[in-house]
C-alpha cells in the first residue's frame, strides 16, 4: 500500500488585523492619532519611519520618543451555506516603537528607529472548521533603522535609512489525518530570519503653511532557511513525516510609496493627507520547500495573488494650549486580497480606521503622547479557492497606545 498520497496543504504565513495584509500601522502615537499620516509633517523623531527627509529640518537638537500599543482585535467567520460560526481568540498584540534623532550639524541629522511595521497574532480555536488552513499564527518583524538626513536647502530635506529586519513566524495547523486515539495530526512551523531594505524620503516646505513629503520604503524579502516543521502524526505515519523536517520559505514585506501634504491652517490648526501605495503584488505565492520530501510530504505551493492597494489617510492637529495638543484622523485601507484568495490566516477586507489622541507637556522637555485607533472591517463574503473554504468575515480592532517624548 505505497499509494498513500496526502496533499499536505501547508498554506500560510502572513497575517493581519491592524492594517490590511500584514502591515501594522501604529508607528507613533502622534501619527496614529492623526490617521497615521505624517509624510509631510514634522512630528519629531518618528519621521525616521514616516519620512527620513523631514528629520534634517527638525527644530530641536535632540528628539527621543518611545511608545507602544495594545492591539485588541477580533475576527468572526460565518461559513457559507452553513450555520457554522467562529470567532478568533487573538492574543493582545503589542507593537512598539523607539525613535531617537540628533542634529549633528546644521545640515545633517542622524537617527535610529526600532519599530514593528509588520506582523501580528491571530488565533482561531484549535478545533475550528478552518483548522486545516490555520489554527494560529504569530508573525513578528522588528525593524532597526539607522538613518541619516541631509538638509539640501532650508526648504528641502532628503533622508535615507537602512532597514535591518529581524523576523520570525510560528504557526500551527491541523492535518486531516486522524489517529486511532482520536487525535488529529498537526504541524508547527517555526522559523526566523534577518533581511534588509531601505527607507528614503524627501521633505519639501513649500511655504510656511504648506509642506509636501514623499517616502519610499523598499520591499524586504524575508527568506527563511532551515526553519523547523514539527509534525505530530499517528505513529504508523511517522516515516512519512520525518521528525527533523526543515523548510525554506519566503515572505515578502511589500514596498510602500507614500505621498503626503500638510497644511498649517493657522498657528493652532494643522491638516494632513497621505496617500500610501502598497506594492502588495510582491506576494504572489507562498511556497514551503520541505527537506526531506517524502511521497506524502511534498513541497507546498499556495497561491496568494495579492494586488497593489492604496490607503487614503486624513489627519488633523489642534493646539489647545501650551500644554495640550489634540489630534484626530481617519483612513480607508483597501484589501490587497482578491475574492477567491481570502484565507483565514489573513482574512483581508477593506478597513476604516478612526483615531484620536493627545500630547500633554509634562515639563518643557517631556511630553506624554496617547492615541486610540478603532478599525472596522467591511464585511466580506469571500474564500480561499484552492481549499474551497468560503464564508463571511467581519473584524474589529481597538488599539490604544501610549508613549513619551523627550526633546531639547
Amino acid at each position, binding site marked *: 500500500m505505497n499509494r498513500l*498520497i496526502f496533499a499536505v496543504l501547508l498554506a500560510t504565513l502572513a497575517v493581519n488585523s491592524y492594517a490590511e495584509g500584514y502591515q501594522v500601522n501604529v508607528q507613533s502615537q502622534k501619527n496614529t492619532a492623526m490617521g497615521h499620516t505624517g509624510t509631510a509633517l514634522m512630528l519629531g523623531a518618528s519621521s525616521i519611519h514616516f519620512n527620513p527627509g523631514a528629520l534634517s529640518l527638525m527644530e530641536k537638537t535632540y528628539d527621543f520618543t518611545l511608545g507602544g500599543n495594545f492591539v*485588541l482585535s477580533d475576527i468572526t467567520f460565518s461559513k457559507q451555506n452553513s450555520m457554522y460560526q467562529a470567532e478568533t481568540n487573538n492574543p493582545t498584540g503589542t507593537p512598539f516603537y523607539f525613535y531617537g534623532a540628533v542634529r549633528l550639524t546644521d545640515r545633517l541629522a542622524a537617527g535610529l528607529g526600532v519599530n514593528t511595521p509588520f506582523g501580528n497574532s491571530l488565533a482561531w480555536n484549535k478545533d475550528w472548521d478552518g483548522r486545516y488552513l490555520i489554527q494560529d499564527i504569530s508573525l513578528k518583524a522588528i525593524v532597526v533603522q539607522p538613518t541619516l538626513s541631509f538638509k539640501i536647502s532650508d526648504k528641502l530635506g532628503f533622508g535615507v535609512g537602512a532597514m535591518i529586519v529581524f523576523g520570525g513566524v510560528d504557526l500551527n495547523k491541523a492535518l486531516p*489525518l*486522524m489517529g486511532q486515539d482520536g487525535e488529529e495530526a498537526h504541524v508547527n512551523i517555526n522559523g526566523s530570519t534577518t533581511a534588509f531594505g531601505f527607507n528614503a524620503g524627501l521633505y519639501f516646505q513649500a511655504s510656511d503653511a504648506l509642506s509636501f513629503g514623499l517616502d519610499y520604503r523598499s520591499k524586504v524579502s524575508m527568506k527563511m532557511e532551515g526553519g523547523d516543521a514539527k509534525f505530530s502524526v499517528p505513529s504508523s505515519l511517522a516515516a512519512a513525516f520525518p521528525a527533523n523536517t526543515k523548510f525554506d520559505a519566503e515572505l515578502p514585506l511589500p514596498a510602500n510609496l507614500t505621498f503626503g501634504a500638510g497644511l498649517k491652517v493657522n498657528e493652532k490648526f494643522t491638516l494632513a493627507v497621505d496617500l500610501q501605495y502598497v506594492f502588495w503584488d510582491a506576494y504572489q505565492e507562498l511556497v514551503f520547500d520541505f527537506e526531506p520530501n517524502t511521497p506524502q510530504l511534498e513541497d507546498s505551493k499556495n497561491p496568494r495573488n495579492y494586488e497593489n492597494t492604496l490607503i487614503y489617510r486624513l489627519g488633523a492637529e489642534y493646539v489647545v494650549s501650551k500644554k495640550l495638543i489634540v489630534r484626530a484622523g481617519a483612513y480607508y485601507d483597501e484589501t490587497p486580497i482578491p475574492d477567491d484568495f481570502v484565507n483565514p490566516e489573513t482574512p483581508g477586507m477593506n478597513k476604516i480606521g478612526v483615531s484620536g489622541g493627545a500630547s500633554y507637556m509634562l515639563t518643557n522637555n517631556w511630553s506624554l503622547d496617547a492615541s486610540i485607533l478603532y478599525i472596522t472591517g467591511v464585511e466580506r463574503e469571500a474564500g480561499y479557492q484552492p481549499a474551497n473554504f468560503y464564508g*463571511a468575515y467581519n473584524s474589529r480592532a481597538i488599539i490604544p497606545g501610549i508613549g513619551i517624548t523627550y526633546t531639547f
Partner: protein
Amino acid sequence: MQKNKYIVLFLSIVLFTQCEVEYKDFKPSNGEADFTTYVALGDSYTAGYTDGALGRRGQESSFPNIIAGQLATVGNNGFTQPLVKSSGSVGSAGLGYLDLEIAGQSLLPVPGAGDMAIFAERVYDASAPVHNLGVPGATAASLLAPAAGGNPFFSRFSSNQTTSVVIDALVQDPTFVSLWIGINDVLGFALGGGENGAPTSPLQFANSMGTIVSQLFTDTGTKGVIATIPDIKDLPYFDAISYDALEIDQTTADLLNAAYTQYNAVSVAMGLPKIEFVAGKNAFVIADKDYAHLGKIRQIKKDEKILLPALGYIRNTETGWGSKTPIPVEYVLDAEEVDKINSATEAYYETIKSIANQYGLAFVDLNSVMKEISEKTVSEDKGVAMDGNKYSSTFVSGGLFSLDGVHFTARGSAIIANEFIKAINKQYNANIPQAPINSYGTVTYP
C-alpha cells in the same frame, strides 16, 4: 482635565462596541417542501454501513441522519434510527469493523470480530417508528419484498415479519422521502468477481423502481429526493489496485520470465500474447477460465479490475498473487464483466433520472459527483477541495471512503449528505444549511 474624561469615555464606548463583532447569520427555510416527517429508504449507504460492517458509529453518521440534523432547522420532527444496541458491529460476512494495522512496511485493513447478536436484536418500537429504513444488501426489488427478501438487517427493526420496507415507510405517512437504491443490483455480481449471476436486468430494475416511487409519491403531498448510483470503477474496492501495480526489479523479472518459458512457447504456437516482465511496473497475471491458452492464465488488461481483497495476497516479488501465481477469477473483473456492470449502471441512471423528472423530485447525481472526484484523484488536482482539505477516491488516504473501499467514512457521509441538501434546496427553493464536514471523522491510523 476635562479632556481626559472625554478620552476615558471614548475608550469605554469603543471597548464596548468591540465586544460585538458581527456575524452573517444563515436563514434556514423549508421552501416548498415539508420536512416534518422525513423517511430514508435505501441500502447500506442509507443504513450507515462503514468499514465493512454495521455498528452504532456508522449509524450515527449515516448520511440520512446527517441530513436530518440539518433539517431540524426547517421543521423536522426528529429522526429515529434502528441503532445497534451493543458496542459491536457486524457485516454481511459476519465480521466486524475493519481497522488499519501495521503489516511490515505497510498498513492493511484487518476486520475485527463480528457481533452476531446484532442480527437477533429487535429494535422495533411501535411508539417510535424508525425513520431510517436503510437495509444493507437491499436491491430495488427487495424494498418491495416481504421481510426484504429475508434480510436479517431488516428483521431487526421491521414492524412485523411479513412487511416490506416500502410498507413500513408508508405507514408513517412521510412528508419527505429520500431514496438511494440500486448499487446492490450491480454490486452482488461485481463483488463476486462476476462469477455468479448477473446484474439486475434494466427492465426489472425499472419495474421495481416504478412500483416503489408510485407507492411513495402518489400521495400528492409527499416530496422527496432520489440519487443515482456510482460507477463501480469510482469505488476504491475496484480501483485501489492498478492493473500494472506489480513493481519488480530486473532480477525478479528475469526469474519470472524464465518461469514462463514453457507458457510462452505455447503462446507463440497458438498466436497469443506472451507473458513478459520488465524491471518496473508490470500487468498482473490473472486466471481466466475462458481464455484460449491452455494455461488459462494471462496478463490483465488496462480496463479490467482487481478487487480490493486481493491486496493482502499481492507482493512485489515472484511469490504472492499476480506474478508466478495468478490472481484467482473471483478477485478479477474481466473486460466482459466490466461491460455488463457498466451497461447496467447506465441503464439504472436513466431510469432514476426519468423518475426524478416524472415525479418532480430533487435529483442528486452522485454518479457524476463520484466521477468528478475520481477523475481529479488521478489528475494534478489530486482530489476535490472541500472546506480546507482535498478529498479523493484514493483508498485509505482519500478521506472519503472507509476501509471497505465501497462505503463512506463519516466525513464522506457528510459530504454525500451535503450533495443531497444542495439538490433539495435547488428543487424546492429551500435553504437548508450544509453539514459541517470537518466535524466528522475519517479514516484513523494506528
